């Protein structure tokens, strides 16, 4: 698989896709998007890398081993249970903190966001892990 066009396009498209995935993750609570969709978009960037440069390239996109990324995501999702449990509320009850940026811009940050980031990482890690595993079946 050595199409010059694909490779050149991938170099441009993959970063764009990654940015799009973060955007989808961030806005997901109010507009279409979210951790799951964002994670899939990021994973499709990895799949593009995998087609253009081979499975190893997909794995190199992440700083950590992909399964490790998935594990961190799962841990984040579980951790998001803790604050409400520590506060004596039913576990998983959402807690929110308002971050005031001035000029009337208030960003609500809450445990659901942490949970969504966890979902994002799980999806990215798992799909990239599967793509990277193709290394075991050499061309």
């Amino acid at each position, binding site marked *: 698989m050595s199409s010059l066009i694909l490779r050149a396009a991938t170099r441009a498209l993959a970063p764009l896709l990654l940015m799009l995935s973060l955007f989808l993750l961030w806005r997901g609570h*109010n507009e279409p998007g979210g951790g799951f969709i964002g994670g899939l978009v990021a994973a*499709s960037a990895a799949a593009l890398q995998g087609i253009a440069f081979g499975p190893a390239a997909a794995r190199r996109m992440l700083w950590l081993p992909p399964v490790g990324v998935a594990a961190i995501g799962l841990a984040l999702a579980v951790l*998001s249970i803790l604050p409400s449990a520590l506060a004596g509320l039913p576990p998983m009850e959402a807690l929110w903190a308002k971050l005031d940026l001035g000029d009337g811009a208030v960003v609500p940050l809450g445990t659901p966001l942490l949970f969504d980031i966890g979902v994002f990482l*799980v*999806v990215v890690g798992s799909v990239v892990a599967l793509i990277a595993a193709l290394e075991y079946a050499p061309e």
Partner: protein
Amino acid sequence: MPQRGLQRSGCDMLTVVLAPFAAALLAPLIVSRLRDRAALVLALVPASLFAWAMANLGEAFPGRIEATPWVPGLSVSLSFNLDGLSALFTLLITGIGTLVVLYAGGYLAGHVMLGRFFAILFAFMGAMLGVVLSDNMIALFVFWELTSLASYLLVGFEAAKPHARRSALQALLITGTGGLALLAGMILLAEAGGSWELSDLALAKSWLQASPLYGPALVLVLVGCFTKSAQWPFHSWLPGAMAAPTPVSAYLHSATMVKAGVYLLARLEPALGGTDVWLVSLGLVGGLTMLMGAVFALLETDLKLVLAWTTVAALGTLVFLLAPSFEPSVKAAMAFLLVHALYKGALFMTAGNLDHEAGTRDLTRLRGLARAMPLTFAAAAMAAFSMAGLPASLGWVAKELIGLAKASDEIGLTLTAATAANAAGFAVACIAGLRPYLGQASEAAAEAHEAPWTMLAGPLLLGALGLVFGMSPQLAADLLIAPAAAAVLGTKPALEITLFKGFDWKFLLTLATFAAGAAIYLAWVRFGAEARARSAPVLERGPDRGYDHLLAGLAAFASWLTRLMQPGLLHRYVAATFAVVGLVVIAGAFRGPFALAPLGDGGKLIEWAVIVLTAAAALATALATTRLLAVTALGMVGLGVTMIFMLWSAPDLAITQFMVETLIVVILALILIRLPGFRITSEADRPGPGTIMIAAGAGVLVAVLMLGVLAEPFDPRLAEWFGANAVPGGLGRNVVNVILVDFRALDTLGEITVVVAAALGGIAAMMRFGRRRADAGGREDR
């Protein structure tokens, strides 16, 4: 009408039951510190429990009940009942337990695993005390199973020997299966009697026996008791259990654990006894076991096996005596229970002494050991006196009581059977208790020497006790036998014993029994070898062989089922899943009429276009000749679904579906590129008519189901609630996302866990594939 024990607060009995478990935890430590003197220290535990039981004998009538809540929600409590029956067993368990601990200290002196041995032995002791003291059936069951586990570990103590491992497993499987039956039976009893407490059930006799559950409950409980107490046809594990070290055989497999079944029968007699089913099943099984044990004991030459078979016979006798629920019989059972525990414990210990000091248990090689081992001989002789039922022994008393019970039974057959078993007992007493010590000294006797005092204290004391009780039988009757019988019968404890009732026909019968016993003994000496040679091929086809066949059959069935269910071929799994789901749905459709939504109700042109396109892609998937084409076409089906989501304003679903379909096609394509031989579907891959039918059926089924669901009026409450609460409750306008990460976050957590697990599975599969490729490559290189 039985009397119920007096309710007391406190937890004396809980302490009594837990003390041996604590000792079990400490035993390895004590052994590693004190080595061979550890047994002396450890024996203090059962000795003090024995003292406790003696001190509390006064309360054994009408009994004393203590309860500690355990799982109150399920009405499971650690409630204990000390009455005459449990007091008798507690004294046997702790008394013989003390002697066995001492004995084991000598028998296993220097054994590397002595600490582990004592740990298991004490755990058993605690569990056994729990069995006989528990009033709550669930607690009793837990302790009951613990005794089976301890027995498993002790029978398999010499784990390097295959025979020991097989015997241990056999004992565990048989008693464990029986235990499960017992649990089911107890649940039925609690259902029918309205209580989990045995003391309540004893008062609910008329309800219980009128209940339709009585029959099934009785059968299940009997299976549990019969397996535990080695009744025919479940007896085969007990001779096998002789693979255990001799102290274990003396303790678990003659004096205590095997009597747990008898104990429970006696305990349930007030609740379940007195019916024809009870009489016939206990009478038949007990009688058969009694005679079988007596005969087989005479066909063995291994001293421990001879004793094991007589234990089987004794257990049969006990069950037999419990069959008719009437007074003389129950009293005889309690007396025989006591005497058997005393003499059989002693005889096992002397057998261990012979094995230990003379180096063999083979009766044909053990002769004339009286000179070398006089004290062992004295103990064995005293025990043999009791076993033979000679005058001035407790055995005589028990035999008199049995004779009395049978005589008032007016059934000649039972009297004959009991007499035959007695005669065989007399013969075995001579064979196992006297013959090895008398006569010309054999080769083994030349090098034998007396056992250490720890190994003599037990058998001498137990043997002597049989004679002491024999000479003052009223003491044994008032102290132990009458209260135990009273607990079963629900009467006041009373038992008058007259040792000699004059020269009536019963006395003549006793003399005849002795004569028959002597004749059997002489016949054993004269024709024993020939009888063994002739019977061996027949005996090989007993239940023991049946157990082997059953086990092999079970393994074969399991592997057949596994091959059927797990063929390792993906298309078979898929076909099976769809076929089963389809059958279930079709079966459900017959349960009642259901409406279908009308087809083609309006629909815009673009919707029809998408549907036609999707259907064409599905057809292309099925007909594709290359796998890459099939994967791509399948992706198109997914895109069609995505478009339907878009048309119906579900952007989140649409994006997700779109991304998933894209990734599936890309990943599958990447895999297919790496599988050159797999790209093109061959003739063999073409689906057969069965597969086509299942596939078409599944499609039709889903369509019908969808139409059925749509025909139901849509309940908007959930959708409205989520819509109304997303912003105030979840601080988000995207309802789908708020549901995913807030309202139903627990579901999502489960889902992402599955995603990670699936990824790990996929990686593992790929790694295996890669290794296989590497192996294949390696072979090609060579």
